[in-house]
């Protein structure tokens, strides 16, 4: 609540503020009435991302010779298909829909965030942490469901000397519970840092007057780089989801 009023105050002052783009405010009405069930810009852009991802796959024709829209949909499908096949092997078909959904949502949210005046849904840690916790809790439940208490063998790697075992088990447990954190922080920090960098450069363009052409040229390149990062982070998130699911399938590898 305190943050929302701060956001409203910042928007009144016409200053160059790279943080302002991350403000969450209601789509209708003013920022003072931010309740639990308020329809915010974050929710709006999340819905747009879901809607566009669904539309892409609904509208893409199913022809033998693909049209342009169909090739986009097919190559996205193929990326996830190859990834699940490579990592999950026999279980690829079971978890493919989940991984594809995650990948598409994050990809569309990231790329839509690069549109001027839009809002980057994945630049808030609460969104990415929720996504990462779905993966983490899901993988843990599947692990115990498939292996019973044999899943705990994940923390005891084979072939480790006995006197090192307590230390190794401790490290394994810590690294297991840090998974949702690293998964969410990676996505959120990349998105936030990238967008802040773009806005700071945009501030240079305004401040330098005629010499602003130099940072403007740099911004074209940086925007391309951010597009790459947006796609790469979606890919990495989906890849790590596959890895964690694979850990839940095959404990003793």
């Amino acid at each position, binding site marked *: 609540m305190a943050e929302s009023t701060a956001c409203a105050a910042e928007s009144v002052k016409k200053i160059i503020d790279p943080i302002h783009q991350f403000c969450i405010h209601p789509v209708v009405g003013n920022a003072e009435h931010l309740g639990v069930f308020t329809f915010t810009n974050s929710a709006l852009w999340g819905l747009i991302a879901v809607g566009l991802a669904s539309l892409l796959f609904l509208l893409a024709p199913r022809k033998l010779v693909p049209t342009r829209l169909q090739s986009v949909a097919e190559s996205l499908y193929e990326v996830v298909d190859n*990834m699940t096949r*490579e*990592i999950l092997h026999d279980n690829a078909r079971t978890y493919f829909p989940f991984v594809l959904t995650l990948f598409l949502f994050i990809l569309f949210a990231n790329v839509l965030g690069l549109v001027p005046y839009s809002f980057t849904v994945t630049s808030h840690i609460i969104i990415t942490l929720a996504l990462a916790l779905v993966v983490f809790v899901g993988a843990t439940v599947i692990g115990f469901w498939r292996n019973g208490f044999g899943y705990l063998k994940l923390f005891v790697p084979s072939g480790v000397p006995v006197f090192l075992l307590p230390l190794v088990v401790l490290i394994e447990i810590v690294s297991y519970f840090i998974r949702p954190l*690293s998964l969410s*922080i*990676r996505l959120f*920090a*990349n998105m936030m*840092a990238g967008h802040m960098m773009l806005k700071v450069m945009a501030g240079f363009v305004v401040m330098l007057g005629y010499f602003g052409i130099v940072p403007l040229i740099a911004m074209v390149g940086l925007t391309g780089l951010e597009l790459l990062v947006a796609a*790469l982070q979606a*890919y*990495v998130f989906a*890849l*790590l989801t596959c*890895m964690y699911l694979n850990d839940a399938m095959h404990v003793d590898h």
Partner: protein
Amino acid sequence: MDVAAAKMIGAGIAAVALGGAGIGIGHIFGNYLAGALRNPAAAASQRGTLFLGFAFAEATGLIGFAVAMLILFG
């Protein structure tokens, strides 16, 4: 020293962690490129491992970034 100034300095020091992540990511992609040029046939199959290594190397640096953000705004 002023607490606000100390916070800024602390956040700056925490952000140094990203330098290590940069070195790590450079190593990973550089070594991948070197390996891929030696054996281009095996390169495509290792792309998943490449991005996995990239993700792990980046994660450690980003924890430093998160600490910097916590110091500044937390």
